[in-house]
């Protein structure tokens, strides 16, 4: 019950959109009708008539709706109940429609409820507010969907003679279905299965022998513990995690540029699994490690989760947010973060609610945008850091201080600019240009650059439009500087040219020749301006035509830094800012583009020190005269402080770099939220997902269909990181039923080949149902309430008799041909990485070195624009590429053909479960890839080195390496004959292609 006194405050919360107040005192509250009221006959028509327009299927103002039973009772955004059965006079809904609350008169527009209607409504509430489920939209049925229900508290059923809890659940079910479990597999099968499952690698023949001979009763448990302690355990788990979060080492999309600092996240994941990090910490670090564990290296590297997916370089850096395509790129970028987070941690497809409420799951569109608001301040960016927390602390303090002084400086600069006016602007520009030249010794202003010609006698022109016909008597051409091909000063300056003027942009009509240098080659002027005076003419357009182009590198071009036009020598440059057209242009902003020709910037030769001094004096004089002293002093101070901060930063050791989701400080056309001190961008609800139809802004939040008590801070108070913290807490809330089921299901899939729910990224209505719901809940609860340890969970799963069963039985069951109930173990085809790693391992070439930048199994051609990743140019003998596949450099646009043929994960999409195909292309890859052919030879060499006996013994030895068993007599005979005919390498290639090599029983 709510005390009456609190009601107004509560009602204000209930509806966030506060409506204009009516000053009148509340009318008397009509009494409840005395008859028995029927919901469908009496109440629903009232809702339909007065309420559903704003609180129904189409609109849900304040997230409240009166066509869905659960929400109608539960209330809107406030979370306070709107209907209190049996207590009409305390029910906010009734008080509002009865106009008892002056600020909240419902309905706000249109006809108010009549006294009779209010009486009827009161009676209904007082009679217990009976509302048949059949009269509610399906929405609230969602709360009964299996994955949203609280995790059940169960004890494993008692099964005679079975003590392992997993087996008790599985066997109980098998017994009920009258299915018979299978016997335990032999030791060779078990160690092969366990090694591939837990490490992704085959056991060595020695390991197999040791295990087979181990007479201890707990030999199996010892083996499990040894494997769980292996550093390869984390590599194996990490590969799956990286599939789920769609980790890649390039950006994807158009140019697919490398992302050279993504790998610290990959290493973070491997280290986390090896260290058996509790799952809560693993989640906290990936969503908000910077805030939960400030200054730790892992807290920074883990944010690579947010940035793991593809990133549209063109859409961000070349297109500003003012353009539709720029808006779409940013919207899709956040969408990827939301989909990745929710798919990974809670196994829901929230991104389906981008354009409309989710069609199948209880996710309103607003919830989707609330989640976008969580990520509204972060972008994909590089971040510098150290392994040592102290250094990170120091560095972030200095960076913060530096940003603060920069802000102060900008504010003061604005004042200076205001006071200094045009005179200051001009002298500053001159000074900046002169200082830059003096500092660099090499000038670096940009220019116009024609298209590239193959012959020097092709002509190229560029022209300026002065806006109107003007008197002209001098044109000055300022040359470019570019180090390309060692050319430097005078880059692209034409050897022969002419300058013409006309009032016709096409230069078809009257054309006046202003300067003609077409008869003989002009010496390259270096960086000296070429001033060309002539008798005054009037014209609007000035065109420079190069008739003999400048050589570049086996080709020819025409480039100019600046074209100046004056009505008299020494006068104002009237071409400044003029629009520029040209026959062609390479247009490679900002370095080369037409507009550079009239931007007032050109490289100069190193300026005379006296000239520099004169400019400085002139600037200082203007400052002293026009700018107040306190502004100048403040600026000096800011400059000194910034310089000091810069020096302190420089004095720190060289930092590491990683690619993460974090506040971006801008680059190219892209402006992150850094300049706004990381203030989150406002996130509006987009009508039909259209970026050009923004609706009301939404506050950060998560899914309201999930019972979790974690509150989100209100939008205006929520700092950037507070939002991510809140989301992590919501995910890890013990009451959140999705998170815990999601993660144990992924672990189950890794061990049994198929999840208890076979759609690990979707626990919604389009996903699968759990085959063993009780077992899933029991595991989720154990995991949540225990140490949240992956190693303990894995130990539990693989020590079960269920896991240790044989995978093939002579008599199969028609009742459960799919083996959903696990009456046998699932035989599995190895994933692409395990196949590749196994080939390297048995060939004796696997380099187990962990961590660090990914190795490249390709050669990059044309890296400057769109890199071409040429896999066929890679040398399979390159030892750098003999490391485990998890350390491959993962290209998004084009994947390695061998790995693709074996169904490796596509880093452009979130992969919760590998496809498994058996195609002719896969057969060709296994037979003919240069990797297989090269490794077959190494395999043979290794076998020969280890056993120099007959072909027959060598065959048996190779067999043990590849398949961990002795060959049968027939196998041995056939392969020996083949070896004698074609050599051991050919036999090794056959072994690598056997079904038994790629399947695990």
């Amino acid at each position, binding site marked *: 019950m709510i005390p009456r006194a609190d009601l107004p405050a509560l009602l204000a919360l209930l509806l966030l959109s506060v409506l204009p107040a009516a000053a009148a005192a509340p009318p008397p509250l009509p009494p409840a009708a005395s008859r028995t009221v029927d919901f469908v006959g009496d109440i629903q028509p009232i809702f339909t008539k007065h309420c559903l327009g704003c609180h129904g299927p189409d609109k849900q103002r304040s997230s409240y709706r009166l066509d869905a039973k659960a929400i109608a009772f539960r209330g809107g955004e406030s979370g306070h109940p709107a209907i209190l059965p049996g207590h009409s006079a305390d029910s906010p809904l009734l008080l509002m429609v009865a106009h008892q609350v002056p600020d909240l008169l419902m309905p706000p527009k249109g006809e108010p409820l009549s006294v009779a209607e209010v009486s009827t409504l009161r009676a209904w509430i007082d009679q217990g507010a009976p509302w048949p489920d059949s009269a509610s939209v399906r929405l609230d049925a969602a709360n009964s969907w299996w994955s949203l229900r609280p995790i059940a508290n169960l004890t494993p059923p008692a099964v005679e003679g079975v003590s392992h809890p997993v087996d008790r659940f599985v066997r109980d079910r098998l017994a009920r279905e009258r299915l018979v479990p299978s016997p335990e597999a032999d030791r060779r099968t078990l160690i092969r299965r366990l090694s591939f499952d837990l490490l992704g690698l085959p056991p060595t023949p020695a390991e197999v022998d040791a295990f087979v001979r181990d007479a201890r009763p707990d030999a199996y448990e010892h083996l499990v513990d040894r494997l769980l302690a292996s550093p390869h355990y984390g590599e194996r788990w990490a590969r799956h995690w990286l599939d789920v979060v769609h980790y890649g080492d390039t950006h994807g999309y158009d140019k697919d540029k490398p992302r050279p600092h993504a790998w610290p996240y990959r290493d973070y994941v491997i280290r986390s699994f090896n260290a058996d990090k509790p799952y809560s910490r693993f989640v906290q670090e990936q969503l908000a490690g910077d805030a939960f564990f400030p200054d730790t290296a892992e807290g920074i590297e883990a944010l690579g989760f947010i940035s793991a997916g593809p990133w549209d370089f063109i859409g961000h850096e070349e297109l500003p947010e003012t353009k539709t395509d720029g808006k779409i790129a940013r919207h899709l970028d956040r969408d990827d973060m939301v989909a990745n987070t929710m798919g990974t941690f809670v196994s829901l497809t929230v991104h389906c609610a981008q354009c409309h409420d989710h069609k199948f799951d209880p996710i309103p569109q607003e919830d989707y945008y609330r989640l976008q608001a969580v990520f509204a301040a972060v972008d994909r960016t590089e971040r510098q850091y150290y392994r040592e927390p102290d250094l990170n602390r120091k560095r972030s303090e200095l960076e913060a201080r530096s940003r603060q002084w920069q802000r102060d400086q900008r504010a003061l600069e604005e004042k200076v600019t205001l006071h200094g006016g045009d005179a200051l602007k001009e002298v500053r520009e001159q000074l900046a240009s002169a200082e830059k030249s003096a500092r660099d010794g090499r000038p670096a202003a940009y220019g116009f650059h024609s298209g590239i010609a193959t012959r020097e006698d092709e002509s190229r022109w560029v022209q300026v439009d002065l806006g109107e016909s003007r008197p002209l008597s001098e044109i000055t051409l300022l040359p470019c500087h570019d180090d390309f091909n060692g050319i430097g000063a005078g880059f692209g300056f034409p050897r022969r040219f002419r300058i013409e003027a006309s009032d016709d942009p096409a230069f078809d009509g009257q054309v006046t020749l202003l300067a003609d240098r077409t008869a003989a080659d002009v010496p390259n002027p270096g960086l000296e301006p070429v001033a060309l005076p002539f008798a005054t003419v009037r014209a609007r357009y000035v065109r420079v035509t190069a008739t003999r182009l400048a050589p570049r590198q086996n080709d020819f071009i025409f480039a100019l830094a600046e074209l100046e036009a004056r009505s008299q020598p020494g006068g104002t440059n009237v071409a400044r800012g003029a629009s520029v057209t040209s026959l062609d242009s390479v247009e490679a902003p900002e370095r080369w583009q037409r507009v550079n020709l009239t931007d007032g910037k050109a490289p100069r030769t190193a300026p005379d020190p006296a000239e520099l001094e004169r400019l400085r004096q002139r600037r200082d004089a203007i400052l002293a005269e026009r700018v107040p002293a306190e502004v100048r002093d403040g600026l000096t101070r800011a400059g000194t402080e910034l310089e000091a901060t810069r020096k302190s930063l420089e004095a720190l050791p060289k930092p590491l770099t990683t690619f993460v989701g974090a506040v971006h400080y801008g680059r190219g056309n892209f402006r992150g939220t850094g300049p706004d001190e990381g203030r989150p961008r406002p996130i509006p609800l987009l009508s039909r997902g259209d970026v050009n139809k923004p609706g009301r802004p939404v506050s950060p939040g998560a899914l309201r269909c999930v019972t979790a008590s974690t509150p989100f801070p209100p939008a205006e108070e929520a700092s950037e990181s507070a939002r991510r913290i809140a989301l992590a807490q919501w995910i890890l809330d013990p009451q959140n039923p999705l998170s815990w089921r999601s993660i144990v299901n992924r672990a189950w899939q890794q061990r049994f080949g198929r999840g208890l729910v076979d759609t690990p990224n979707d626990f919604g209505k389009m996903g699968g149902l759990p085959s063993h719901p009780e077992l899933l809940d029991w595991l989720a609860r154990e995991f949540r309430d225990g140490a949240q340890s992956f190693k303990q969970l894995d130990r539990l799963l693989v020590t079960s008799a269920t896991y240790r069963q044989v995978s093939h039985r002579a008599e199969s069951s028609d009742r459960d041909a799919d083996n959903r109930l696990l009456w046998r173990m699932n035989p599995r085809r190895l994933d692409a990485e395990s196949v590749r790693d196994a080939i390297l391992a048995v060939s004796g070439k696997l380099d187990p070195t962990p961590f660090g930048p990914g190795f490249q199994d390709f050669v990059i051609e044309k890296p400057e624009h769109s890199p071409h990743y040429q896999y066929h140019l890679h040398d399979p003998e390159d030892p750098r590429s003999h490391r485990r596949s998890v350390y491959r450099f993962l290209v998004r646009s084009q994947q390695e053909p061998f790995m693709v043929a074996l169904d490796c994960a596509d880093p452009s999409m979130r992969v919760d479960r590998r*496809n498994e195909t058996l195609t002719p292309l896969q057969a060709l890859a296994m037979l003919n890839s240069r990797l297989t052919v090269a490794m077959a030879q190494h395999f043979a060499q290794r076998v020969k080195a280890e056993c120099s006996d007959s072909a027959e013994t060598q065959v048996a030895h190779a067999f043990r390496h590849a398949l961990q068993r002795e060959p049968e007599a027939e196998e041995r005979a056939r392969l020996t004959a083949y070896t004698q005919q074609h050599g051991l390498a050919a036999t090794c290639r056959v072994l690598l292609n056997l*079904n038994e090599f790629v399947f695990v029983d």
Partner: protein
Amino acid sequence: MPPQSPFHRGAAPALTSRREFLWRSGGGLGGIALAHLLGSESLRAASGAPLRLGTHHAPRAKRVVQLFMAGGASHIDLFDHKPELVKRHGQPSDFGEPVEAFQDGLGPWKAPVWPFRPYGQCGKLLAEPVAALGAVADELAFIHNVTSKSGVHSAGTLLQTTGFLLPGFPGSGCWVSYGLGTLNENLPTFVVLPDHRGFASNGSKNWDNAFLPGQHQGVMIYPGTDRPIAHLHPPAAPFLSEASEKESREILRSLNQQHARSRTDDPRLDARIRAYELAARMQLAAPEALDIAHEPAHILKLYGLDHGRSSFDKEINPLEETDYFSRKCLVARRLLERGVRYVQIWSGNDNGFPRRNWDSHEDIERDQGPLATGMARGAAALIQDLKQRGLLDDTLVIWSTEFGRMPSTQGGKGRDHNPYCFTTWMAGGGIRGGTTYGPSDEWAYKPADRKNPTQVYDIHATMLHLLGIDHTQLTFRHNGIDRRLTDVHGHVIRDLLA
């Protein structure tokens, strides 16, 4: 139709765990083919007859060849004639509304670079570089009001090739392969002939199978090179010979069969044995299919491949472009004849310099002249060749590009992107030739009827319709969503149907 080919879905597994097998080979059961497979189990078991894959209605076409112009072909300069631009050439452009261009700075109106002349009985106006298409003008159906959702190459290309703006979705050919299966036993179902100079935007994301099973991926073929198909043959190695290869195949089969004998409950083991046998067949079939050396002289002439040159000028030129594009068209015909279901030919690479694609920001004439001349020669020859072999009736030809170009200049001789309006054309199986559909406005800047543009979804829906598929019914469940090539959009363009 031939029996269900393992190129399409792996070998036929044992009935008992067929459902399991299908589940493992790729998730959901939304495709008509998969649904059909499952539905046919009892039927097949009873009769022992090979499976026939179903369609939703009688198809008009069995195969598709798609020609894709990467970078943005100029509808204005090639196909969509606008007299108003000729009249206003050089005048300051006025679109009557603010225009959001990709690169800023739209210049004056620009007339089409080349003159247009009428062709065929339909009198379709075509520009000089694509004059070769005049010979088949009455086979072509033009759509002049296609709009995109993006003016960015990457997203625009993905939208055309996969129906989505972001990577991670199957190419259109993958969907066709998934829906209809294969027509042959020895070659892939979906073949891609990329531009030999490099990939266009997104690389293989334009034809990857994404979440569909791997056998539906577009298989890249580079005809006339040392390695036309990845892994088709082993690299040279001292221990490899024809004899060792032959014997290794036999040993593999025999040892694999022995291994499978104690594991009869796993159909994948037999499927993999079959895959190796088919791989061997493909090693024989593919080189033959790609070899054009024995094509008769009149065919080489038709495709413009009788020039006798083996090297070309450094500057972009029509002869070289004809050679490259036509060669791919001729190979495409050979592949289609041999039962490849979907062939995609690419013209244009990424945006390197010198430019070898259709993204003519600098100079329409310099680039699109040679590119269009080569494309038109190859495309016209392909259509004529298919027709004379009776294949055009059930082969759908689709010409597309990611967007068009602006009716104004960018200050020089080039044009900026125009995602608001551009041209696609189709021909062949089930298409009403000589059609011009969906006019653009007087500048070819936007559709004449802005409220009813044609979207790529409509083109995909029409393509699937002609193949006998209801585009709303060809689905695959991935991460909780029943995905379609047409997302939640798409209408069959009835006016184009014969």
